[in-house]
């Protein structure tokens, strides 16, 4: 499937599953959008876990974020109302963000907050979950835990009414970076 089509499907499916999608043209556009989104969401305190796919951010953004480190108290992590991390892969068909983690803190940072902002590179979007099979198998073999996030935390348990933000984020925002 050509890249443009995969990107379009991914954006459509993100919206379909209740997430938001922002397509950024390169890193500068990402930083600009990230700042705007953080302003608009307006939740504090906010957290950042530096991961291989997104190790750092410009100073003006990083100053607004608290670094989460391995071994950090879980109660502290639970206090964050917004979190920003890089995303390892994405699945177009289901509008999913795929994160391989090595520590509990790294995983928890995306579990608790009301808003989760995930930065994903367009080149890492795969067409379907099944296309991710070997990547997942390799990740697992290397001791990674895999989290696939496809929209906000939700429930229909009370009178079949759709309510977001049960145990996890009620806002999932994917910032998709398209390298020119």
């Amino acid at each position, binding site marked *: 499937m050509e890249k443009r089509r995969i990107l379009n499907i991914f954006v459509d499916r993100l919206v379909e599953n209740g997430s938001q999608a922002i397509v950024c043209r390169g890193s500068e556009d990402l930083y600009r959008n990230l700042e705007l989104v953080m302003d608009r969401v307006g939740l504090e305190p906010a957290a950042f876990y530096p991961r291989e796919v997104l190790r750092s951010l410009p100073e003006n953004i990083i100053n607004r974020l608290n670094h989460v480190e391995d071994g950090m108290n879980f109660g502290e992590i639970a206090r964050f109302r917004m979190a920003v991390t890089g995303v390892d892969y994405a699945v177009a068909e289901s509008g999913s963000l795929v994160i391989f983690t090595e520590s509990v803190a790294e995983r928890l940072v995306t579990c608790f907050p009301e808003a989760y902002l995930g930065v994903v590179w367009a080149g890492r979007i795969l067409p379907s979950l099944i296309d991710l099979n070997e990547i997942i*198998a390799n990740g697992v073999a290397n001791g990674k835990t895999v989290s696939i996030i496809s929209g906000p935390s939700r429930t229909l348990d009370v009178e079949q009414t759709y309510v977001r933000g049960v145990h996890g984020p009620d806002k999932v925002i994917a910032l998709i970076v398209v390298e020119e």
Partner: protein
Amino acid sequence: MIRGQHLLRESLDSVRRARSLRMSQITPSVLEELQTLRDKNLEKLASNIDRLRHAVEKAGGHFYLAQTPSQATDYVVDVVRRCHGRLILKTKSMTTEEIGLNHALEAAGLDVVETDMGERIIQLAGEKPSHILAPAIHMTASEISKILSSNLQPTPSAIVRHVRDDLRRYFLMADVGITGANAISADTGSIIIVTNEGNERLVTSIPRIYICVAGVEKVVSNMYEALRTVEIQVASATGQRLTSYLTIISPNAREFGEGREFHLVLVDNGRMRASGDAELRETLRCIRCSACFNVCPTYRLVGGKIFGHIYTGPIGIPWTYITAGAEAAAGFSHLCISCGLCMGECPVNIDIPYLISAVKDRAVRSGSSKPPFLAANYERILRTASRLPHLSNIILSNPSMRTLMEKILDIDHRRILPSIPSKSLRELFRRVEKPEHPVGKAVLFTDSMIMYLFPELGLEAGLMLSGLGVDVSLPPQTGSGMPLFQNGLLDLARKMANLNVDNLAPYVESDHEVVCLEPTAEYMLRRIYPKLLKTVKASKVALRTYSLSNYLIKILEVEALEPVYGRLIYHWPCHSRDLHAHPPTKLLLERLGYDVLGLDVGCCGMAGVWGVGAGFEMSRMIVGELVEAVDRIGGETVVTDSTICLLQLQQFLKNKVIHSISLLHENIRRPAS
């Protein structure tokens, strides 16, 4: 009115709509592949479990295969005690319900907190889950808010916020996290869990001790199979492409290097025995999507608190037999009325109606249940009544006699029954002439209702076919045996099946088609007899069997005698739904020129002898949905293909209700060319 019945029905309908849309996007080959994978996995279950044990232990995790529920609960309690755990968090898990884990932990003085929203509500209410995916589906927001707090607003969002805040403190204090599994990959020991709430992420990450408790059937060979299973499970369960969260956690995960422990407890509890049981092994193909619940007419009425033991709904019957025995299954298996609608929903093509009948059969044999008198003797009762029509009609019209009939024969006195005709179908059928130059050869298979109670329909079918140039005959036959099958009297059903197949086979050999005048008759001949008898003869008969409408469409290519105008409401009987992707009679009537409105509701609730006897009250409640639908449309004539449905609709609808044979008989001819 049963508590929460409307909520339940609306919920099931809404899930079903979403599911239908999603499943239509999945190609049949993907479903076939999953079915094959599930079957292959069953064949190598023992070796996969060995591989899994090796993978878990090699990675430093703990593996335990529990043969019985108490072995599993003892193991979990021991682990918690050894680690000095106090507070245990759980995600929703049917296997832990099956083994009574909460009870065992609480008996050991430990605190257990359910973290799934619906399950937590049920836990605080002290109730039983009514659905495997939506445990509190039967409760209103007002009822839930009263359970949670005296001053909580009775709105879904306020309830969710309250439960979320309440559970947050537990998440941070818990020592032990317990989950089930949607799939387990044997090669790495990876546990795959899906949720929409995200509670599994917290339960598997924060506590020091992580324990997964799952049935052995969850074990698949590798990650590919696990992902395929979960993908279809989600699509068929909720209609989503994926749930909000999918977590894959493995015993070798670096997370467990932080002083945490990984335990996998696999539960057998009858599953391995079932995997070697030719009749029941299909149950283990189930991926627990609960799609079969959505269409089950009796489940839709009473929900899982009545239609279930631990496992609920149609597939819950064989699951209960396997994991809790015949008596537990017999406690609710009688609620299955063998309409067959569930099988059409199953993504892995499990013959749920047959499994349920097999379970009922075993329950009867083991003395756990007694078949209804009427079901076991219906053919004899009908035959006797038709031999003495005058006397029978006097009895039927006498209220005192009807009360007596209720006591002796279990025929509910409120059921309006047709009078017994004075002439038998065999006598009437003499009027059917052989065409001089036949265009085809057919034999009629009528089933008991037309044979004994509505012979004029058999005659009309015969006259119509002979008028269309078919050499049609009425061979010796008994009823199809559906009431016997429905009530688990499989040996008796087999006898009738044998008799009918023996009678029909020579005609099939001499190039006759078998034309069924009842959807149930077609269902038995095509779907049930080959499975009951496992003979080539039964399969050959099945291959040449048609419904009357399909025969008219496919073999004769008929058209309207005169141009017809008019609007009809069509009720599609359940057994025909199981056999045909589209209703043949509706297609035929439309071809003749009628404007036909198909009813978008399932079963009418009659279900043969069930609705005549013990099931009358429920049958009356089930038909309510159909009555509402017809009332919304208006006063048009209602048409159906089944005399059983006809009885029900004539009793409960204000509209005129007619059998499709009568309508076709008056309106059909072969094209002049």
